[in-house]
């Protein structure tokens, strides 16, 4: 290589490295350099893009309201303000773990909350535990989060899959009868739901006259629906979720099943119902929290009514169960930090475990010490396709309520799978 060409090469290589360095330095421009001593930061690791974006948004809104309430009262630990840092995990556990580590190591968050997607919850739970950071799973339902994969540093607010099946199983069995037909999605969540309902069936003496496993991403439910029509059960349990759920109900309507055979299932999100075509707005479903009704909110529950009214005023739609998860999670997380007077995960966990409190629904509740599951009731709601004349969003008619101790596994049963290791 002749001399002048050496300059070009070196220049280019150096330029490449320099620009890579500059690009890598970009984060400094985006991140605020507020000193960590003035505020306590809570990291939000949610699925802000993708299929669950609407739920992530609801949960975050609820969380922000709780945070604002605490800050209005002077913050935590004698006057320290609370802020949040949010990261999107795109429904991807690997990215979720990366973001969790970024939130803790780079943004210096004191604790983490998050997630709709169960695999994300599980992954972040493990990652947070490895960093000894407190993590509250606000919206991921897999039993393992408070079961086989339980951690001292992980708590869960929303109901577990077991609670969902048992709450609805008892209510639906009571209401419609004991001959059940199940349409089950053929993957982990579906199997868990299936096992849950079989357990309920055993307990109440119901018989399962049919149980079809539908493959992942089924677009066509007609073979199953024709079988259901033939089997004439008292109740059709639709366990499929998401797109499959919409397809199934749409086609159930097409095949004339609606009105002939009662339809029910473990749970449906309010946001999802609002997006359903009217023909598919049928059935009785588990409702984890609802913004109306004495059965849910109680009478004279100021906290609840304030929450609902403020949320509605701010966002123009009513709060959903997801909003409630976010609110309760943030509220209790901050309470725990305040109570423990520390951001040490073990201290917060000790403060939270078993501590009784009242919040935006009727009744007293607590995160169970054995598995860190929030023990609260669950309701059954029938869908009103058009809502009410006063409120088009009011699509649920809450008809029943089940208490937590009857719908979750006992402490003894949980102890068989959950072995919590404290530092």
């Amino acid at each position, binding site marked *: 290589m002749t001399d002048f060409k050496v300059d070009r090469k070196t220049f280019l*290589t150096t330029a*490449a490295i320099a620009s890579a360095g500059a690009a890598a330095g970009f984060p400094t421009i985006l991140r605020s350099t507020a000193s960590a001593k003035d505020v306590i930061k809570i990291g939000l690791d949610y699925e802000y893009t993708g299929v669950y974006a609407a739920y992530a948004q609801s949960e975050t809104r609820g969380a922000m309201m709780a945070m604002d309430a605490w800050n209005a009262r002077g913050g935590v630990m004698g006057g320290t303000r609370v802020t949040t840092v949010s990261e999107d995990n795109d429904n991807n556990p690997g990215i979720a773990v990366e973001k969790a580590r*970024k939130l803790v190591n780079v943004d210096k968050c004191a604790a983490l909350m998050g997630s709709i997607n169960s*695999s994300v919850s599980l992954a972040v739970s493990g990652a947070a535990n490895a960093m000894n950071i407190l993590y509250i799973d606000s919206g991921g339902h897999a039993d393992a989060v408070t079961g086989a994969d339980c951690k001292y540093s992980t708590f869960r607010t929303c109901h577990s899959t077991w609670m969902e099946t048992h709450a609805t199983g008892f209510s639906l069995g009571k209401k419609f009868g004991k001959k059940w037909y199940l349409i089950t999605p053929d*993957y982990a969540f579906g199997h868990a739901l299936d096992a849950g309902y079989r357990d309920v069936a055993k307990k109440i003496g119901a018989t399962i006259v049919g149980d079809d496993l539908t493959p992942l991403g089924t677009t066509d439910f007609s073979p199953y629906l024709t079988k259901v029509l033939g089997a004439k059960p008292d109740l059709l349990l639709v366990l499929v979720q998401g797109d499959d759920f919409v397809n199934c109900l749409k086609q159930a309507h097409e095949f004339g099943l609606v009105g002939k055979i009662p339809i029910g299932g473990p749970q449906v999100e309010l946001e999802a119902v609002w997006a359903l075509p009217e023909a598919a707005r049928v059935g009785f479903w588990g409702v984890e929290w609802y913004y109306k009704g004495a059965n849910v909110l109680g009478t004279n529950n100021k906290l609840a009514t304030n929450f609902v009214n403020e949320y509605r005023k701010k966002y123009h739609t009513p709060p959903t169960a997801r909003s409630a998860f976010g609110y309760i999670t943030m509220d209790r997380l901050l309470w725990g930090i305040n109570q423990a007077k520390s951001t040490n995960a073990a201290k917060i966990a000790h403060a939270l475990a078993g501590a009784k409190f009242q919040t935006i629904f009727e009744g007293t509740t607590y995160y169970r010490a054995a598995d860190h599951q929030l023990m609260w009731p669950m309701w059954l709601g029938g869908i009103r396709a058009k809502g009410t004349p006063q409120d088009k969003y009011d699509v649920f008619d809450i008809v029943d309520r089940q208490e937590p101790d009857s719908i979750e596994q006992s402490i003894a049963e949980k102890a068989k799978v959950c072995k919590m290791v404290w530092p």
Partner: protein
Amino acid sequence: MKSIGIWGWVATAILFVLLLLAPQLAPRLHLALTICTDVLLFAIAAMAVNLLLGYTGVLPFGNAAFFGLGAYGAGLSIQNFHVGFITSLAIGTLAGVVGALLIGPFLLRRRGIYFALLMIAFGQVFYFIAYRFTNVTGGEDGMNFTRPALEGFGIHLQDAGFYYAILLIFTLVVAGFWLLVRSPFGRTLVAIKQNEVRARYLGLNTDRFIFVALLISAAIEGLAGACYGLSIMFAYPLLLDWHQSGDIVLMTILGGAGTIFGPLVGAIIYVIGEDILSTALPWWQIPLGALFVACVLGFPKGLLGTALDLLPGRKNRIEPGHDLDFAAPIIADRETTR
């Protein structure tokens, strides 16, 4: 034999110094060290793709199957047999190779788009298996596992220790890759890429060469997957999905297929870029998609490839494996194969 010149070595040396200093540099740049670890292991994955795409001339759009197999292989062996760190990586690598052994014979019957489509389809089969066999793999919930200790030393590698382990693996893979593409085997691959029919006329069993290349690529990809599994201590089905394949292929092309360090450049841009973008913008998938489009339309040779092309004297030299435009226009392909 062409050499990369003294300044190429200098650049490489500077690069490795920077990589060695990453644990100190990263915090100053507000980057988590774990992101740097991820950059390295995705660079390894992209190198696997590079071997097939840049040097052999096949489109490995289902490569994530091997990546995912690697992660699950490592995870399952840790969960069920409590193996150590190095053993889990070895098992992950082996899982990738087994995957290639299973689907290779099908893939070899076709080339070009067919090869790509077939690989996507078979990749989806593995995805489906991971999703469906909940008892073994945890299904869509994924699989948690701990990072095992290093055999013989009994120490658990965390953060910086883990980073250096991955850096060591990366260095070994780069060195091996460099030797491979300069070996007679590597040169044969390039010959096949440039004109497979001619290679066949010369008596070479191109199927066998491509198959071996596929096995090596799957091994490297499996190793990368195992590293990733150990990094996040989790394995999940999306690792096998064709979107993951697309991401890794993009990294290869972004940096420059057919170059040694192209995959690393691509991995740096993609992994760090995605991290920054997803923090800054809620709709970051749009600039990501736009990056694909811009890269394909504007920088087909990738960043490093285009940069190297700007260096005087390079354009006219016949650089083995450097030119991605190996396929003559479709018409010519058709005519030669008829």
